[in-house]
């Protein structure tokens, strides 16, 4: 079993408004194809930890290694490229680009990466949309979709560049239980059938229970796992 993501002794401070330690000596190993959830009370530092692991936030102490690459200390440009190939994101508030169609939203990260031709990207995007059951909505403007539908499109978008790791920050946070279940099933399917590694922050107990492993956090520390 190979370790895909290794975090060692992560410490993070916020200096505003007062100096305050959000993350306290956090170390985690995440195994390939694992479906991990991070659980804990609101404000305990889950999102902060996820942004560190996703390399979007580089202001921390400690070391993060992803896919055998030490990402700590890489430049912003290197990180942007690394992220686009290795990490897909799903945010709590789905964050689609509202003026664009569903298909465009999914295609944009691949177009930016520029590895595939326009035609291949379109096929790939349709394939990902099918995976989340949204392939019939491709030409709808994304702002016209419901919350659950937008979240599914956001997952398809996270998958477009075939990242090894998918990170999600409270992906079901503002969805009803039926929609939440759909999203959960999609993640489960991705990890078991497609071999994606999934790290999802949640405070939904059901969601956490059904994942492979749950990391519990309290006041910036890992309590048990």
């Amino acid at each position, binding site marked *: 079993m190979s370790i895909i993501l290794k975090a060692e002794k992560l410490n993070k401070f916020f200096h505003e408004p007062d100096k305050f330690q959000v993350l306290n000596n956090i170390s985690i190993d995440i195994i390939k194809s694992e479906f991990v959830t991070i659980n804990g009370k609101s404000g305990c530092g889950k*999102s*902060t930890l996820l*942004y560190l692991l996703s390399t*979007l*936030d580089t202001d921390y102490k400690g070391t993060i290694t992803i896919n055998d690459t030490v990402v700590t200390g890489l430049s*912003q*440009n290197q990180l*942007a*490229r690394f*992220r*686009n190939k290795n990490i897909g*994101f799903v*945010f*709590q*508030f789905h*964050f*689609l*680009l*509202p*003026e*664009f169609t569903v298909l*465009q939203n999914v295609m*944009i*990260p691949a*177009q*930016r*990466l520029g590895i595939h031709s*326009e035609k291949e990207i379109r096929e790939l995007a349709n394939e990902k949309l099918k995976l989340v059951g949204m392939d019939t909505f491709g030409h709808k403007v994304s702002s016209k979709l419901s919350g659950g539908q937008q979240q599914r499109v956001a997952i398809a978008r996270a998958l477009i560049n075939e990242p090894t790791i998918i990170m999600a*920050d*409270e992906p079901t*946070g503002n969805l009803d239980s039926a929609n939440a279940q759909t999203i959960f099933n999609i993640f489960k399917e991705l990890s078991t059938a497609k071999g994606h590694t999934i790290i999802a922050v949640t405070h939904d107990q059901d969601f956490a229970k059904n994942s492979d492993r749950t990391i519990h956090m309290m006041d910036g520390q890992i309590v048990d796992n």
Partner: protein
Amino acid sequence: MSLPVNLQISRTHLLSRKKQTLVAMLGVTFGIAMFILMISFMKGVNKFLEDTMLQATPDIHIYNDVKTDYTRTVAGDYYKSGELIMIHHPKPKHVNLNIRNAELIINDLMQNPDVAAVSPHLSTQVFYNYGPVQINGLIDGVDIMQEAQLYGLKEKMITGRVENLLTSNNGILMGQGLTDKLNVRVGDMVNLATPTGTFMRFRIEGTFQIGIGTIDNIKSYVNTASVQQLLGKDRSYITDINVKLKDIHLASAYAKSFQTKYAYKADDWETSNASIMASFLIRDVLTYVVSITLLIVAGFGIYNIMTMTINSKMKDIAILKAQCFARKDIIQIFLSQSLVIGVLGALTGIILGFTLSYLLSQVPFPKNENISLKFFPVIFEPKHYIFAMMFGIVTTFIAGFMPSVKASKIDPVAILRG
């Protein structure tokens, strides 16, 4: 055929808020259109004035200036002992204002390949008498064919022909305004009196209208010999030599060289019309100040709209940055939007500006017998349009660049955290 992804995003942004895009574009359109209208009109006025001025001013005017340098006086000849001599307020001694070697100078000027025409002059104040009417005026004794070349006199004749002056003994070509005042016409005889009291009768051979009241109402042309006779001078007596060059822009350089070469004062047209040249400068400055202000206001419009767009798109920018869009991509996305606004605005502005200028050039100018203008003077110069285009694009570039850089600095984590 598909645009790069950055430009696709930029296009979608522009099209999703058409009204704002249009308003920002119209700001640039009006700025550019007004600039073009103003500069075309102001330059048209300048050109009209310059043309009018050149109808009354030779390219280079060579004359014998009254000397005011009395450092060498006859006094020194009497007091040779080397004492200091103080002379207060010397009066100008009797001077002849003629150009002594005029014949030589004229021949030399004719040899110059850049010279188009040389017209010797002898002018004097006169009273025009026709019956009881007596009018103060001026006569110019000229070589009429040369003079006609200088000022395009042939086209300005109202009655009679320029050549008639050559064949007639005591012929005179009169300003149209002058003949109106005297109520005379071609074939009539007029009496001229000089300030020194001599009289002479002339036969009117033609009338001309330059289009400048102060000339048409007082001036007449006669043969040089007539004026020499009136003044009681000999046949070589000439006071002024007017020169027309093939290229008017050489005037100031040639004026300097003629002055040193012939040792007489030589003024180019710009020096002779310094106040008109100053008014050109003032109009130019005015035009540029007003138009640039308009364009800068349009620039602020774009700046505002881009800032608003970017503020309402913080989340989108964060999501793009989280997905491998580097800072330069974000700048490209938003800068290209303002450039599209700028280029479209500038193009429509140029079209509108041209249309307005054209319409103005068709508006009849209020009738005035002293000004030979039929329509409002407007000129159409490609370089003004190019300048307007460039300036419009540069302004929108700057107006779009600042908010775009701000957008590119957005920290995605701060916006995306749930």
